[in-house]
């Protein structure tokens, strides 16, 4: 038996005013899209991240010069807004005469690569821990909480530096070290989200239907904590990008001649008193990228929040 409240009883004679008007049906995706388009922070964040991702992907096409090509006769040319700027090098050149704009564009590949891979590794570790703790509770929860507390007590920058130094700093090592260190927030957030979802009726129904824990975790729990997961992933991406820059700045992260933004700031530091733009340009690039990712994450959180809650 079906009940259809909107169907008029006598279609031919019923006055239009007697019809029950249902709100137009919208899919969750359509609602999210509508909210996204009216959320300023989300739009700005998506715009910034979109442009930087495009620049990273199209780097070989849009970079005006080879980022590694040195030219000692054209060292430390200032950017275009200076009187001594050059039309050939919009953002000037570094101490080895390498084009700064080209290095900046290629540097975005490094930041994005490290942010994405570190967030992926730490996301897998943290989500596994958090979901297990949230779903099983009790002893499992206690053990996971203990592991998270222990991890939080270790000073991240120091431990990352020490590990990178022992293995030898490189892009791969930075990704691994950060991936293995930054899973704490993933674990904390997915644990809380899983506890909420676990209390829902559909999980009880799946249990009653005789489904095993693997299937319940994969099909009932994971899809429902995905929004929370995306928000943490953006935060941790931003965190990893900032940490990579710091490690590279201290000389134990990405190694020269790779154009990591943190490394560019380290290489520019001896010249910053007379050519301040050598540290300003990569610094602003970092700031803008991290700001964009954070705005995107905050936006996703607001947009996916249930109606009326922000």
């Amino acid at each position, binding site marked *: 038996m079906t009940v259809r409240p909107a169907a008029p009883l006598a279609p031919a004679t019923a006055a239009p005013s007697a019809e029950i008007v249902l709100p137009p049906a919208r899919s969750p995706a359509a609602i999210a899209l509508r909210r996204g388009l009216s959320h300023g922070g989300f739009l700005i964040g998506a715009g910034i991240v979109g442009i930087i991702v495009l620049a990273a992907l199209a780097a070989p096409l849009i970079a005006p010069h080879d980022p590694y090509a040195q030219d000692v006769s054209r060292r430390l040319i200032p950017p275009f807004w200076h009187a001594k700027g050059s039309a050939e090098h919009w953002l000037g050149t570094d101490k080895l005469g390498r084009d700064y704009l080209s290095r900046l564009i290629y540097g975005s590949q490094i930041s994005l690569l490290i942010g994405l891979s570190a967030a992926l590794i730490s996301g897998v570790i943290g989500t596994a821990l958090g979901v297990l703790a949230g779903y099983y509770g009790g002893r499992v929860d206690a053990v996971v909480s*203990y592991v998270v507390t*222990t991890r939080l007590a*270790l000073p991240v920058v*120091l*431990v990352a530096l020490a590990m990178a130094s022992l293995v030898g700093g490189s892009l791969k090592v930075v990704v691994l070290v950060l991936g293995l260190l930054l899973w704490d927030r993933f674990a904390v957030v997915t644990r809380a989200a899983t506890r909420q979802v676990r209390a829902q009726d559909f999980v009880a129904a799946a249990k009653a239907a005789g489904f095993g824990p693997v299937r319940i975790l994969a099909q009932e729990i994971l899809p429902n904590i995905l929004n929370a997961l995306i928000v943490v992933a953006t935060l941790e991406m*931003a965190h990893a990008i900032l940490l990579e*820059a710091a490690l590279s700045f201290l000389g134990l992260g990405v190694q020269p001649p790779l154009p990591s933004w943190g490394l560019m700031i380290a290489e520019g530091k001896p010249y*910053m008193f007379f050519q301040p733009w050598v540290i300003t340009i990569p610094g602003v690039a970092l*700031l*803008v990228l991290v700001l964009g990712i954070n705005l995107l994450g905050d936006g996703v959180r607001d947009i996916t929040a249930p109606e009326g809650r922000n």
Partner: protein
Amino acid sequence: MLRFALRRILVAVGVALTVSVASFLLLHLSGDLATAIAGPEATGAQIAAIRAQHGLDRPLAVQFGAWAWQALHLDFGRSFYFPEQVTDLLAARLPVTLTLGVIALAVALLVAIPLGVLAAFHRDTWIDRTALAVSVLGQAMPSFWFGLTLILIFSVNLRWLPVSGNATWKHFILPAVALGYYAMPAVMRLTRNGMLEVLSSDYVRTARAKGLPPRKILIRHALRNAVIPVIALAAVQFGFMLGGSIVIEAVFSLQGLGQLAWESIARNDFPVVQAIVLVLAMIYIALTLAADLLNALLDPRLRA
């Protein structure tokens, strides 16, 4: 409360033990210490000699036992690089880092709490939005770059403050701002949300209905309750700051614990690195324990 405190202290001791094992293993498993100390040109015999000299040829469990037993008595052995005992090195550097941390925390709280209160009081106005923008910007700012930029503005252009070193109190201002700015957003948001919650509570409404002046309500009724969780957060942030000060100390050439750690990592001085990791971890554990106990003391609901 006593049962909660005992359980929480037990967990803290356990975590402290686990952290010491972890920091020990991290350094002993991520590479061969003897080879790293000997350098790239050493022969096999030289590496073996160094291994025997530092006792690195003993089983790991024995090495850990000996190290942990000494560490418990605040003896971290001898530095590979300096002639001094590690403990003496740490004792000389810790005050600089602690001073930096305390000033940075003060800067963060002095900016964040008034800003959070203002934002809550003027919710959804331009003041609120400005405070939000400042906090979003703070989370995105690379601290070492912010430090360099502060040097450019206040030391090079305006010539108000010294560039680097730790000779006078003036040397601590810029690094403290650079370090404190990073902790500010979290404190600001927590103050704002706490104030919003308190301002909509019944007892504040009662106080308003009694006709108390707004300033009195704000300070005597609202702020006092909103600030409790902020104190706990500040303790945790202080722990994070001590760990993060390594970058800031490198930028400003402050001769603190972080600078010592950075240099020791570069010259493979493992006893020093290990001791600093351990000391920072212990300070963090003690701070979070104090924060948890304080919160539980003030809010019985947390004693579950």
